[in-house]
């Protein structure tokens, strides 16, 4: 398994192997699930209470479906770990974080100096998501 390089959580990492979305519904004790680009994140919504880790796989960084999957889970109130795995590069980190990812396991380890800069690039943000950043329109109008 690829190592988690960045994690923005205090709880203990889930060691369980992640099962597929299809298998997950039948395995009443599974706590970790892996979403592939073609999976519907909403299939997991009935089970959010028992999920502690969702891995979202990015087989190729250019396939952006995982960003929507992440937001859908967070918008539904999921609070467990949301981990981006696969072809994750430093230039995607900021947007992924905004979509609700709080752990990153890139298949090629990232240079820590670059990752630090990636999270510090944007002084503000234009859009509201479920993260704790205040969008610019709210800064303007309170």
């Amino acid at each position, binding site marked *: 398994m690829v190592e988690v390089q960045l994690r923005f959580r205090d709880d203990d990492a889930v060691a369980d192997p992640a099962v597929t979305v299809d298998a997950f519904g039948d395995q009443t004790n599974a706590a970790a699930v892996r979403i592939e680009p073609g999976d519907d994140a909403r299939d997991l919504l009935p089970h959010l209470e028992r999920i502690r880790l969702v891995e979202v796989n990015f087989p190729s960084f250019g396939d952006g479906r995982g960003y929507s999957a992440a937001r859908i889970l967070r918008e539904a109130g999921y609070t467990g770990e949301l981990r981006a795995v696969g072809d994750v590069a430093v230039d995607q980190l*900021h947007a992924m974080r905004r979509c609700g990812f709080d752990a990153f396991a890139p298949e090629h380890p990232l240079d820590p100096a670059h990752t630090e800069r990636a999270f510090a690039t944007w002084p503000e943000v234009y859009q509201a998501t479920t993260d704790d950043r205040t969008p610019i329109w709210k800064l303007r109008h309170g």
Partner: protein
Amino acid sequence: MYKYDQYDQAMVDARVAEFRDQVRRRLDGTLPEDKFRPLRLMNGLYLQLHAYMLRVAVPYGTLSSAQMRVLGDIADKYDRGYGHFTTRQNIQYNWIKLEDAPDILADLAKVEMHAIQTSGNCIRNISSDQYAGATADELIDPRPYAELLRQWSSFHPEFSYLPRKFKIAVIASATDRAAMRLHDIGIEIVRNEQGEIGAAFYVGGGMGRTPMIAPCINAFVPLDQLITYSEACLRVYNRYGRRDNKYKARIKILVHELGKDEYTRQVEAEFAHLLSQGIEPPLAELERIKVQFADPAFETGLPDSVDRSDPDFAVWVDRNTAAHRVPGYAIVTISLKPVGGIPGDATADQIRLMADLAKEYSFDELRVTHAQNIVLPHVRKADLYALWTKLDEAGLSTANLDTIGDIIACPGLDYCSLANARSIPVAQKISERFAGREAEIGELKLKISGCINACGHHHAGHIGILGVDRKGTENYQLLLGGSEGADTSLGQITGPGFDEDGIVGAIEKATEVYLANKQGEERFLDTYRRVGMAPFKEAIYG
């Protein structure tokens, strides 16, 4: 005009810094080209046949004199003294060095400009009506809504890796001057029966190899749900748009394959969910933006007549000016289609001159049109002659707006690595062949693409030309009957293609059929629609 506040400026400055870092990593080898490519594309930097091309965003086509001046300076400093205005109301430079790109972006940021998302599989620069805020036929100025969408779509965290590029146009006039229904999302600002202002959403239009006219999926989205509704449209597309085949990846294919009703149902369901998420800016934000698009200080009591004693000037006035909503003013279009020239090209000096003229005669404002011309939106009629004289001295007084010489042409094989055929030389030949016949032939929109990707909008031309590759030689197909206005339609192919000289001859024949069959004030398109393809085919191939 919209002015950046400290937040907008900080975002653009951050982007410059980020891109500078990315270019540095590319040049020192830590960032491989395949990873760098999508990043440079999101900053408008393409690798073309001979050099890098940088595309600079002109949001909703509106520019101040100061911005236009910088565009001229960039052409001198970093390019070969030219800028090329595009069908997306942007400007591009064809001879850029990678090392210079961060400095160019820094120069642009100083005048509140950028190249953000002018390419790549993301939401592109928002386009609009070039006569916005000036024309008598609009409901309201559409640009504040476009600016609201610009901010929402800039660096959108969820929609930076869409299946394919995504283009949005916003208009507020039934006379559609922005080809609204040929966009991924076309928004028309409308008034409902209760007298409220809202937005009609047309989704799934586009050109390319499978041209589609966007259907209306919601005739009235309230203004305080505009962003949320857009987000729902995009999310359904991001999740379900095809990613297996780049030629089937645009939203038009999704809407077509799902069917308009099913796509709409999914959008409405996502919309209902997103309404609970608090992602919509307050109406106060729209008001803040609107104030900045307030009218300039128009004078009242100005004379509404024009001294037409100079016949060349009179021809230009008739051809290149349009009615302004304020008495005593006119909307002027400066044609960037001189006879035999490259459509949309301007020299650095011409760009700076247009900047100066805008300052002197048009309240500091210019517009770029999707037909690759420049508009001075607010000119006093009393100043028209002085303005024309200065344009004439600079080779900018061609009186051919919307006529056969006012050609839209993509860069084609002269620059573009995807091209099958050259577009520019064909445009030059046609404009030379028909020069001087503008009054006789009248309105005739001619559009040329160098390949099936249709950047030259050939499907939407009254006459369209498509460059194809036939056994290794350049060949041109002819289409008739397209239109992009309120009466949007797609052109039909006449039959077998032609070589470069043959296509010019075929167009000549088509214009002869028109002139022979024309009734009353009919335009080429009207006659074609009335008599159909048959007489044209017969004349061209018979």
